[in-house]
Structure formats: C-alpha cells, structure tokens
C-alpha cells in the first residue's frame, strides 16, 4: 500500500526485494510440503494412533506457546537481530502475573484479565529495555538479549526465591490452558492462531511490516528513505517482549507453574522454528506463516518418533539434522536466485504465473 507512494530509492529496490519475498513464500510452501510428508509417513506407520483427534489436539497445544513467541521472533530476526531473552521474559512475566493475580484474588475472569495486563506490561518492559539497548546504545542484539536472558530469569528467581509459583486461577487453567473453545478445539491453540494471523497481517499488510523488512534488507537505505530506524527497532523488540509476556500467561495456564527452571531451551527452539520456516538470520527475508510450520516440524517429528518407538536420543539428532538440511536447501535456492537462475522447484513448475513474473523481474 504505502510502497507505491515511496521515493524512487525504494522503487529501484523493489524488483529484487519482491523476488526475494517470493522465494521466502516458496520456502514456506516447501516446508509445508515437508510437514505434510512427515505427517503422511507417521500416519502410514501408525494409522490408528497418529492422525487421531487426541493426538492432533496435543500437537497443536504443544506448539501454541512456541507460536506466540515465534511471531515476535520472526519480526526481530527479519530486522537482522535476535532475541535470546524470550524464555526468561516468559518466566518473568508469568511470575509477575502470578503475584498480581494472587494479590487481586479470586479464580474468575477478572483475575485473569488483571494477570493479562500484568504479564503484557512485564513483557513490554523487557522488550523496551532490549530495544533501547539495541537501537540507541548500539549493543549487538545477541549480547543485549543474552544479558536480559540472564537478568530476567534472575529477577524471577529473586521474586520467587527460586520456588515455582503455582497460583494460576481456575479460569486460566481450565478454560484457556486445557479448555476447548468448541468440541475438541483447544482454546490455547485458537488464542495462538489469533496472534499468528495478527502477526501475518502486521508483517505483510502494514507499514510496520514493510519497515521491518526494510531495516533488515538495508538499514541505511531504509533510513535514507525516511524510516526512523532506531524508533522502529525499539518497537520491534517491544513487540517481541509483549508477546513473550503474553506467552508467560498462557504458560501459566498450561503448566499451572511458572516453570522457572524449564525455559532454558525455549529461545533456541523458537529460533530453530523461525530458521526452518525460511526466515533468513541475516534479516530482510521471512514470513510468520513459515515460522509456524517450522515450529510444527520438530514437534511432529518428536511426537511421531515417540509413537513409533525411536530411542529418545535419536530424536534430537534427527531434529538437528532436519534444521541444518532445510536451511541448506533454502540457502542453495537463494544463491541460485541471486545468480538469476530460476528458484522454482520442479514440482511447482506448472504454476506458470509466479515463474514468468520472476523472469520478468530478472530481465
């Protein structure tokens, strides 16, 4: 929308940028196919247990919290940054929400609402700290968020003296954490889906999203074409923090515990999902949809391997190998695209529309 009105600087960048975004969409599609194949394989191996309502419900529930974190992480990584603090911010926000809900009292929706405000505020506060340090103080995001990873967890432990809190109100646990919105559709997954759709719209259909891509592709070019880079970076990290805070409340509902010791691998799992989903860790390319599919793959693999009876340690090896292989294939295709050869995959070659457009772009 706003792209059509911008200065010529952006217009000249438009052709390659849109081609790259097309590639990232292709990547998301390819990942989707990998997911479908994985599901098909496990369904064939365990026809009576894998594709059951109970199992699908479980997989979706287990992905929900990661998906909420993944939306924020996608934005941060598209700017060329990283956020290692999401797990700790999640814990911290859960702790603050728990304390505030105990102070407010009650087991109903009013208490949950108060907790929600507390969780969002705590997450937002950490996001702002990250954003200001990255954008204004120019400390590398890896270092800033490594610092807040440690500090947020430390504060959570100071508040709780290291003891997990377990005071989630009944409405949060029974209706959001383990409840169904209709039939067997888990509420937590619907909540996460709403966040994901919001993220997709924000990234692909608004100026906020456009600026996010612009900073990641070339911050200097963005600045010269009128993007307030520093302010936008702060907003992106604040958004990621806000979502981590929200995830903290969901986590409290799902585990009925602040899981202080349990989130150390969360940021890495989320980053892996973002990378599998086709978002470039160098910034400028990526999609929220890809991230969601990328988060599903390790969880579906783990679920399937457990049902098939693969030894636990092999599950880690395979998930690691898939991560590297998928990103490698993506890299090959991207390199090919930059050389001007067609990035299309053979099985997509009949969808002529996209192909001819990309050829026009390279001419």
């Amino acid at each position: 929308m706003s792209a059509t009105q911008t200065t010529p600087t952006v217009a000249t960048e438009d052709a390659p940028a849109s081609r790259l975004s097309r590639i990232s969409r292709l990547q998301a599609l390819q990942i989707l196919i990998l997911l479908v194949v994985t599901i098909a394989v496990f369904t064939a191996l365990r026809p009576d247990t894998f594709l059951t309502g109970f199992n699908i419900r479980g997989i979706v529930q287990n992905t929900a919290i990661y998906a909420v974190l993944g939306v924020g992480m996608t934005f941060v990584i598209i700017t060329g940054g990283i956020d290692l603090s999401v797990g700790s911010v999640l814990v911290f926000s859960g702790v603050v929400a728990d304390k505030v809900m105990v102070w407010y009292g009650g087991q109903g929706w009013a208490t949950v609402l108060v907790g929600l405000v507390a969780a969002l505020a705590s997450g937002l506060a950490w996001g702002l700290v990250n954003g200001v340090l990255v954008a204004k103080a120019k400390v590398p995001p890896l270092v800033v968020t490594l610092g807040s990873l440690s500090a947020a967890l430390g504060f959570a432990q100071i508040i709780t003296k290291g003891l997990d809190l377990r005071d989630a109100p009944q409405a949060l646990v029974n209706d959001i954490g383990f409840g169904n919105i209709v039939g067997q559709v888990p509420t937590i997954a619907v909540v996460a889906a709403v966040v994901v759709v919001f993220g997709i719209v924000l990234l692909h259909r608004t100026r906020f999203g456009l600026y996010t891509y612009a900073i990641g592709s070339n911050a200097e070019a963005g600045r010269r074409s009128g993007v307030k880079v520093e302010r936008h970076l702060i907003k992106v990290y604040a958004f990621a923090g806000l979502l981590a805070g929200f995830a903290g409340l969901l986590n409290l509902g799902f585990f009925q515990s602040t899981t202080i010791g349990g989130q150390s691998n969360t940021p890495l799992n989320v980053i892996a999902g973002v990378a599998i989903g086709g978002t470039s860790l160098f910034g400028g390319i990526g999609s929220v949809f890809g991230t969601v599919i990328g988060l599903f793959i390790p969880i579906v693999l783990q679920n399937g391997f457990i049902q098939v009876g693969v030894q636990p340690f092999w599950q880690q090896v395979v998930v690691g190998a898939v991560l590297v292989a998928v990103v490698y294939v993506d890299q090959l295709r991207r390199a090919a695209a930059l050389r001007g050869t067609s990035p299309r995959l053979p099985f997509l070659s009949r969808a002529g529309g996209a192909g001819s457009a990309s050829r026009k772009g390279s001419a």
Partner: protein
Amino acid sequence: MKRKSTVIVAVLAAVALGAAACGSDSDGGSNAGGGSDGYELAFVQGVAGDAFYITMECGIKEEAAKQGATVTVQGAQKFDPTLQTPVLQSVIASKPDAILIAPTDVAAMQQPIAQAKAQGIKIVLVDTTLNDPSVAVSAISSDNSAGGKAAFEAIQKLAPNGGKVLGVGVQPGISTTDARDKGFADAAKADSKFTYLGVQYSQNDPAKAASIVSAALQKDPDIVGIFASNLFSAQGSATGIRQAGKQGQVNVVGFDAGPEQIKALQDGTVQALIAQQPGDIGVQGVQQAVKALKGEANEANIQTGSTIITKDTIDSPEGKAAAYKASC
C-alpha cells in the same frame, strides 16, 4: 540446480522414513501380539539417560517379560515438565494399556496425567508423585524422608564432632527430593552438634552445583558435610569441593548410586551414598499396572527402602547389588 535441491529433499524424506522404519522394526512384534493378553506398557522416565531410570527400566522390562507384557520407554532430555508434557502426550496418543511415569512436577504434570486417565489408560506413578495421586492406581516410591535421615546419619558417623552441614537440592517442587531435603534438614536440626545451613538448588545442573558448593565454601570454610540429594547435584558438589581444595575436610553424602558415584566413592571424592532401589520400584510398578489391567485390587501406596553404601561396604555383595546399572 533444480535437480540438486530435489535430490536433497528426497534424501531428507528417505532419512526420515528410514529412521522411522528402523524404530518400527524393533517393536513390530508388540503390535501383532497386542490384541490378546500381552499388555502394552509404556514407561515415561523423569529424564533420559540417567542410571536411576535405566535401572528402573531394567526392573520394568524384566518383570514385564515375566508377565508377558511389552514395554516402550521414552523420556525427555531434561528433568523438566515443559519437556515431559509433549513426550507424555505422544505416549498417550499411541494408546498403551498402562503408563508408568515419573512425574517431573507435582502440579504441572497433574493435568497431562489426568488426560491419560481420561483416555482409559491405567497410571502407575513410579518414584515421584503428584499433588493428587488419586489419578494413579498406585504410587511407588522410595521412602525419601527416611533416605534423607539416613544421609544425615552417614554424616554423623563421618564427622562425629559435629559442624556445619549444607544441602544441595535439585529444584523445589519435586516430591522426592523435597522429602529427602526435609528428612535431612529435620535430622540435622535435631542434633545440637550440627548447624544446618539450609538447602541450595542446582536445577539438576552439575556446573551449577559446583559453583554453589565452591561459593558456600568461600562463605563457610568450615563446612563438614554436604548432602547432595540427587545424581547431578552430587557430581557437581564433588567438583566444587575439589575447586576449593577442601578434599578430606568436607564429607559429601550423595543420593543414588550410579556408576559415576560408585567411582567417586572409590576415588574418595564422595564419602557415602544413599542407594535407592529403582529396580524394585520398576518391578512393583509393573505388578501394580498388570493387577489394575486385570481388574484386581491395587495397593495405592508402596514405599521401598534404601541402603547406605560407604567405601567399606562398596565391594560387599549387598553394596554391589545396591549399585545402579548403566545398561540392562
């Protein structure tokens, strides 16, 4: 170019298929025989690759073989409810007749385990338990409080003049280690010759246990005894004492008797071990599960004992029997 990426995708798919197929081979027989009287059991460990749970697994497999049942074993990479929940959920989806599980949190695992019960699966809690253990047909665990008391008795013998004692725990909220820590604390407080310095939590991380112990020795250089209430805490505590150069002065009593701890006991870095009976827990767990499946009455609570192993008893037949196994 096109061909290359196609090949890679194909290889990926083949690897996934191959891995999956291998796995299915190993328990292919269980599905075939599942229909008749051979029950399918699943064992969800607290953490994968821990000698305690491996020894329990050995007990479970042995007893299951006797009862004509098959067992699949799964565990998460860390002792952590956020990792155990998806593992348990996948196990439930594979529809075993009964699940033996060591819950990693008294509250967080309550709902996921209740879901298993709702699917008609019989639950046996092994080693750890829940806030409301009534979802399970039986809960089998070591008498952990008595184990903690035994750890203090071991320190009393090793340091008869008394002094400061410290606890190194895992993390709060685990029923078994909480009970051990409490058993130890109560016994230590009851003896006026000893000063109890409280318990520090290692989050099941040996590196963290090491830094806790070396920091504690900076503050109180005259500590005479440390009770490390699980495997990794004991490993880390021994490292921390070595860092501080206090070998010989500080007596470490470890809980559990994995191969590393037996080695540490032989080397003299740990002075006593409180061995539980994980194999026995496993055997009784299978017996209770099968009883429940046959519709027989269950014992809701079973407690198993513990053994103190010191350097003197380590090579005795009892000491050898009490040590945990690294593989079945």
